[in-house]
C-alpha cells in the first residue's frame, strides 16, 4: 500500500496534454459574441449531462472525460449531480418524445446564465433517427443551442475541444477573429 502511494505521488500523471479549443466550436461561438457577453462565469464550469433518448454511445465517451487520461477536472470543468448546480447542459440523443418534457423542465431548473450544448450527431441533427415518429427532432428546433459538438459518437478529444472553447467564452477570452 505504502509503495503504491509513494509511486503514485512520485511518478508523472498519465494525463495527456489537452487539445487547444476546437476551431469549429470557436467559430460557432464567435458568431454569438453578444449573447455570450452576458454569460461570463470565469474559468469554472459545472456540467449536467442530460440523456434525451441517446443510445449511450455518447455517454460512454463523455464518461471517458473523467478518467486519468483526459482528466476534465484539471481545466476547472466538472460534472455535478443536479441541474440547480450546473452551468452547462450537455444534451445527447435525438430528443425522443418521451424525454422532451423532462429535457425542458431540466433546462428551466438550471439557473441563468447557462449554456446548452448539443453533443453528438443525434442531438445536432437527429442523426440516424432524424424524421422518426418517436423523436421531436434536433435539439436546436426545441431550445436555443449555444454549441454543437458533432460526431457519432464524438471522441473524448472532440468533446474536450468543444468544452474548452466554451470555457474560453465563459472566461471572456475568445481569440479575436477577422
Amino acid at each position, binding site marked *: 500500500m505504502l509503495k503504491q*502511494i509513494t509511486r503514485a505521488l512520485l511518478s508523472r500523471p498519465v494525463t495527456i496534454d489537452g487539445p487547444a479549443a476546437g476551431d469549429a466550436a470557436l467559430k460557432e461561438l464567435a458568431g454569438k459574441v453578444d449573447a455570450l457577453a452576458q454569460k461570463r462565469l470565469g474559468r469554472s464550469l459545472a456540467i449536467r449531462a442530460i440523456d434525451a433518448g441517446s443510445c449511450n454511445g455518447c455517454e460512454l465517451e463523455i464518461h471517458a472525460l473523467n478518467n486519468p487520461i483526459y482528466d476534465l*477536472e484539471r481545466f476547472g470543468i466538472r460534472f455535478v*449531480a443536479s441541474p*440547480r448546480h450546473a452551468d452547462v447542459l450537455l444534451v445527447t440523443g435525438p430528443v425522443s418524445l418521451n424525454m422532451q418534457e423532462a429535457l425542458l423542465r431540466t433546462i428551466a*431548473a438550471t439557473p441563468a446564465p447557462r449554456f446548452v450544448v448539443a453533443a453528438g450527431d443525434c442531438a445536432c441533427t437527429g442523426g440516424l433517427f432524424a424524421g422518426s415518429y418517436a423523436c421531436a427532432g434536433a435539439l436546436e428546433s426545441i431550445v436555443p443551442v449555444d454549441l454543437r459538438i458533432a460526431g457519432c459518437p464524438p471522441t473524448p478529444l472532440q468533446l474536450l475541444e468543444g468544452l474548452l472553447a466554451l470555457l474560453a467564452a465563459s472566461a471572456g477570452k475568445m481569440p479575436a477573429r477577422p
Partner: protein
Amino acid sequence: MTTLLIFVAQLLLPVAAAPLLTGFVRKIKARLLGRRGPPLLQPYRDLARLLRKEPILADNASWLFRGAPYGAFAAIWLAMTAIPTVATTTSPGLGLDLIAIAGLLGLARILIALAGMDVGTSFGGIGASREMTIGALAEPALFVAIIALAIIANSTALPDMSRAMSEGVGLRVSLALALGAIVMVAIAETGRIPVDNPATHLELTMVHEAMVLEYSGRHLAMIELGAMLKLVLYLSLIASIFAPWGLAHGGGAGDLGAALGLWLTKLAAGGFVLAVFETAIAKMRVFRYPEFLGAALLFGILGVVFLYISQHLK
C-alpha cells in the same frame, strides 16, 4: 489593540484559507489517482462562479430554505472563532468552549437538514434523515471525548486546553483514545469517505450532497464555503488539542508569524493524510455507520474510565 488584531485575524484567516485547503486535498487525491487534478485555486473560482449566477427557488420554498445557508454558515463561522489557530487568545468575551462548538455545529446541521426537507423532494428527505442519524451517533461520541479531555486539562475552553496540553500532561492512554474518537467523529461530520463521499454523483449514496441538491447560486456558495470551513474547523480543533506546538501565547509579532506558518503546515499535513486515507479505503454501507461511530463512542468512554480509575489508584 493586539488582542483585537489577533481576533480579527483568527476570524478572517480560516475563511480565506478554507477553499485553498479543499483545493489542496482535491489536488493530492487527483495525483494519487494518476491525474493532474484541478489548480489549487479552483475552489475560489467555483465560489466566484456561483456568486455570478441567479439563485433559483422552488415554488414551495419557505423562508427557512432561503435563510438556512446563511444561518448554517454563521454558526460554523462562530464556532471557528472559538478555536485557537494562531494564538491562544480567542473570541474575547464570548466564552465559547468545546461544548458550545459542538452545539453550534449541531445547529448548522439541523438548519441544513430542515432546508433539505423544506421543498419536499425525496432526495432532500433521504439526505436529512441520514445526516440526523450520523449526528445522533456522532454527537454523544464527541461529548464523551470532550469529557475525557476536560478531565485532563481541567477546562472545556479550547485556549486553556491548548495551554495545558503544551505545558505537558505526559503520555496518556486516554489522550490517544480521545484522539481516535475525535478523528472518527470529524470524518463523519465533515462528510468524508468512508461515511460520505464529497465527490459522488449517485443520489442514493449521498448524505450531505442530497440535502443541498435544490440549492443554486449564492445560497449554494454559502453552503459550499461552510462545508470547506468545517473541514478547517475540525483540523484546527484536532491540531489545537493534540499538536498545540507553536501557538502564540502572547502578542509578539515573531511568535505570531511562526504560529501562522505552523498552523498552515498542520492544515496541509492534515489534508495530505485525509487525501491518502480517502484514496486508500472505500465508502461504507449506510447500515454500518452505527458500528463506526459506536467505536468512536467506545473509545471516548474507555478514555474517561481509564482516567477515572487512574485518579483513584494514586
